[in-house]
């Protein structure tokens, strides 16, 4: 009986299994295939803090969610249409993410006594215990089938069984009428030195595909048509890689060599790892003894003339606070990338949150403002990083690029830009001694931007000293009350004036009216989806999603004036809304906050607005 092929708008698939089951790879192969085919995609890996917790236990479950669509998709999806669960623990911990009529794919071999017990089931019917009734369940004995195949290709069962994720992947490809070419290619490249492994992987992949073709549980298959996309060359990109590349692009456009002093920390490490690869483009990375050395080597490199960068996450941002103050008072360009994770303290390191905004805004001793930019999607990280570097270099300030684990690990297709479409970056390099100055005055400012000049060691006659003590424009240490007051003012005003070179804030949806939804950073996709859904429901709202946190765009106040109610959505206790209360106290703000280490669900945003409307 040939299956019916049904067109669907979009589909959410969640791959879950043991940390050793290769779910991250499986998910990304699926995502790549969809992207190559022309679907829009968004992905969201969700893994535990342990490297390999005991097999089969709840704490060892690793997940990867892919949302593919025939038109733009902005989030990895609230709930899933298909759940791949390679063992009982994976099923148990992911059942909460199922849509009402979702398809479930399990390896039934793992649902034996031992497996059920490890996952904490009390009976031998996991499905019943979890109250799974309305779902389609595809339950091949994947482990034993794979073991058999291993024997066929002549591989030992142990290595063979490692390929069982391919079986599940094959089923998924069949289910969505997708081509296996990309995955086949990948396998052939990856195992180029081991033909047996190539054979094995390909066999299991195809076995899965064929199995799906025969099993009764699959009544229909689906197709997600390609989305209409602008012509161009595309690639999948995650936020961490995009940050690395954006910084490299800024280095090219500024002529300043890229230096990154850093210390590994989840979920920011991948930026350092990516930068370390690009020595061919002159990128220098220095893995330091700690975060403080990370920022301090970068400050040194900045003084010496590099585009200096330091990357970290929450606890590391805390550690860098003192030195960040040094960059502020020395007025040196620096990009500090902070990929937020669940806090406080070590917190929940592999989960996402927006709870470092307060720290970014206020977390330093003394009057110590820094510029802050927040990317809003994985691919936007490229642009955000580029502009963070541009502003840092051109305004001689540290800029915090405030990313999120959700963005850093998440991926989406990206139309590769041409570097000629990006502006050049012009740092205010000092080349020679000013006329009439006996020596170089490091803190003499451009009257319009208040930016000081950057005199690089090695330049004759511009010898000068900077440092953490308050100084006057000539660069001499001063504790004069008025010098201090003026310098405090100028350092803040210099950042405020960056507002003159950033784009005005856009409003999506209604341009004026009753309700303005406000948000920032990685919640963009969810906010956007909520806005469309509300629009579909005939509820009119505007959405102002901020990329620029400090300074805010110049038209912010004017936008706020056009709405009766302003409601600020954040994955924290209300950092941005309180910042707005300080900046524009004339408005009344409502707020919606979630602090669960998880992204928003579109439905909860919609509901929050519905509550206000009714």
């Amino acid at each position, binding site marked *: 009986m040939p299956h019916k092929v049904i067109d669907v708008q979009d589909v959410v698939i969640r791959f879950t299994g043991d940390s050793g089951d290769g779910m991250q790879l499986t998910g990304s192969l699926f995502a*790549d295939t969809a992207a190559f085919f022309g679907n829009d995609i968004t992905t969201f890996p969700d893994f535990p803090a342990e490297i390999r917790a005991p097999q089969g236990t709840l704490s060892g479950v690793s997940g990867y969610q892919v949302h593919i669509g025939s038109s733009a998709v902005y989030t990895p999806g609230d709930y899933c249409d298909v759940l791949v669960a390679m063992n009982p623990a994976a099923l148990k911990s992911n059942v909460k993410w199922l849509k009402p009529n979702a398809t479930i794919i399990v390896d039934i071999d793992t649902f034996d006594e031992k497996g059920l017990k490890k996952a904490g089931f009390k009976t031998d019917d996991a499905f019943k215990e979890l109250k799974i009734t309305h779902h389609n369940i595809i339950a091949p004995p994947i482990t034993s089938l794979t073991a058999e195949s291993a024997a066929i290709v002549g591989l030992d069962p142990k290595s063979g069984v490692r390929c069982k994720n391919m079986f599940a992947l094959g089923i998924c490809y069949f289910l969505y009428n997708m081509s296996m070419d990309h995955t086949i290619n990948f396998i052939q490249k990856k195992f180029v030195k081991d033909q047996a492994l190539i054979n094995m992987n390909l066999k299991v992949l195809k076995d899965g595909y064929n199995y799906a073709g025969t099993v009764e549980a699959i009544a229909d298959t689906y197709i997600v048509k390609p989305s209409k996309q602008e012509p161009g060359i595309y690639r999948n990109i995650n936020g961490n890689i995009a940050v690395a*590349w954006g910084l490299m692009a800024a280095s090219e456009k500024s002529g300043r060599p890229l230096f990154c002093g850093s210390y590994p920390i989840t979920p920011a490490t991948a930026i350092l790892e990516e930068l370390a690869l690009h020595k061919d483009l002159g990128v220098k990375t220095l893995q330091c003894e700690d975060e403080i050395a990370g920022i301090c080597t970068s400050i040194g490199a900045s003084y010496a003339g590099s585009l200096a960068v330091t990357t970290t996450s929450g606890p590391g941002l805390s550690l860098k606070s003192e030195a960040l103050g040094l960059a502020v008072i020395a007025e040196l360009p620096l990009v500090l990338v902070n990929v937020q994770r669940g806090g406080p303290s070590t917190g929940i390191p592999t989960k996402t949150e927006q709870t470092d905004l307060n720290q970014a805004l206020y977390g330093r001793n003394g009057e110590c403002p820094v510029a802050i930019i927040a990317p809003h999607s994985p691919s936007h990280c490229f642009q955000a990083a580029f502009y963070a570097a541009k502003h840092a270099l051109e305004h001689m300030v540290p800029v915090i690029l405030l990313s999120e684990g959700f963005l850093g690990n998440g991926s989406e297709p990206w139309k590769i830009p041409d570097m000629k479409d990006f502006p050049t970056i012009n740092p205010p390099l000092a080349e020679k001694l000013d006329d009439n100055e006996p020596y170089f005055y490091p803190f003499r400012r451009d009257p319009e931007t208040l930016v000081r000049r950057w005199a690089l060691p090695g330049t004759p006659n511009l010898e000068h000293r900077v440092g953490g003590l308050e100084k006057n424009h000539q660069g001499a240490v001063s504790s004069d009350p008025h010098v201090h007051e003026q310098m405090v003012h100028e350092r803040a005003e210099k950042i405020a004036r960056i507002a003159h070179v950033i784009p005005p804030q856009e409003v999506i949806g209604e341009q004026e009216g009753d309700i303005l939804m406000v948000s920032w950073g990685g919640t963009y996709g969810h906010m956007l989806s909520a806005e469309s859904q509300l629009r579909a429901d005939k509820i009119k709202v505007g959405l102002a999603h901020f990329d620029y946190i400090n300074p805010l765009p110049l038209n912010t106040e004017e936008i706020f004036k056009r709405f009766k109610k302003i409601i600020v959505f954040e994955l924290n206790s209300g950092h941005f809304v309180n910042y707005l209360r300080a900046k524009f106290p004339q408005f009344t703000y409502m707020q919606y906050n979630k602090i669960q280490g998880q992204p928003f669900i579109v439905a909860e945003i919609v509901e929050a607005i519905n509550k206000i409307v009714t």
Partner: protein
Amino acid sequence: MKFTPQDFKSDQEVKWCPGCGDHAVLAAIQRALPEISEELGYSRERYVFVSGIGCSSRFPYYMKTYGFHGIHGRAAAIATGMKVANPTLSVWEMTGDGDSLAIGGNHLIHAIRRNIDINIVLFNNRIYGLTKGQYSPTSQWGSVTRTSPYGTVEHPFNPGALSMGARGTFFARTLDMELQLTRELMIEAARHDGTSLVEVLQNCVIFNDKTHSIISNREVRADRTIVLRHGEPMIYGKDKDKGLILDGIKLKAVTIGKDGITKDDILVHNAEEQDHGVHMMLCEMQWPEFPVALGVIRRVKDRTYDDMVRDQLTEVANKSQIRCMNDMLRSGDTWVVE
């Protein structure tokens, strides 16, 4: 261009206390730099003086060179970043015993381990000067200070020993008042490729006066210190009649002509010995059992971090097809939408 010490003096008033040992070090360095510049072909704009916080860390303000007065303890990290970013700079770190051994201890040992080519001058006055007299990690056991009114109960670091433990390639020691030796060691430090650590036993007249005088007093100095020179026998004393010999696997201080000891028994200093063991023993020598070692105790050749980073960059670039961002962005897994 030929420089004079004057060329390295900034217009800033020197604000150390009258009589502070720091003045002499400043003078010695200002005298060493013209020589270094000549020998190594450095122009003035290639020097950067980096420091942390402390009395001694005010140093950069007094030099007419590029300078960075950093934050407490982080000078080694700042200097490392500078040197990696621009390996053509001659980077000097000026630091105190508190700055580099208390809060900055980790950056110090990591700089040493990496063998980054910077010159570190450690002003060891065994006290926190700037904060007015608290004990430091080099304060001697029992020191009575503002934070140890009943005496400290902790062993001091020996900066030389610590540097050996961190696999240092260059360690030297001098006294603040030995201007000539200090000058000489600064030149040696500059010549050395890799992290050079020069400890200056420095007097703080205000908060720890005479802390080194038991060995540094003019009358006893020759008998209680030994200036080591590579390839020369370890002889010291006013009358050059004292020396060091090997006793089993340990060192021993002896008098030549006594107990049958002759000049030939005296050890010859090998600053270039790879093994840290002997240098460790030399660093740890304490009066009265031993003379305190001055001069270059260790100086061994090794790869420097900054050179290796640069070399790796070139090597990778030479092998790569990628020349610019546009190349890079289009490499790897991509697809075309038409």
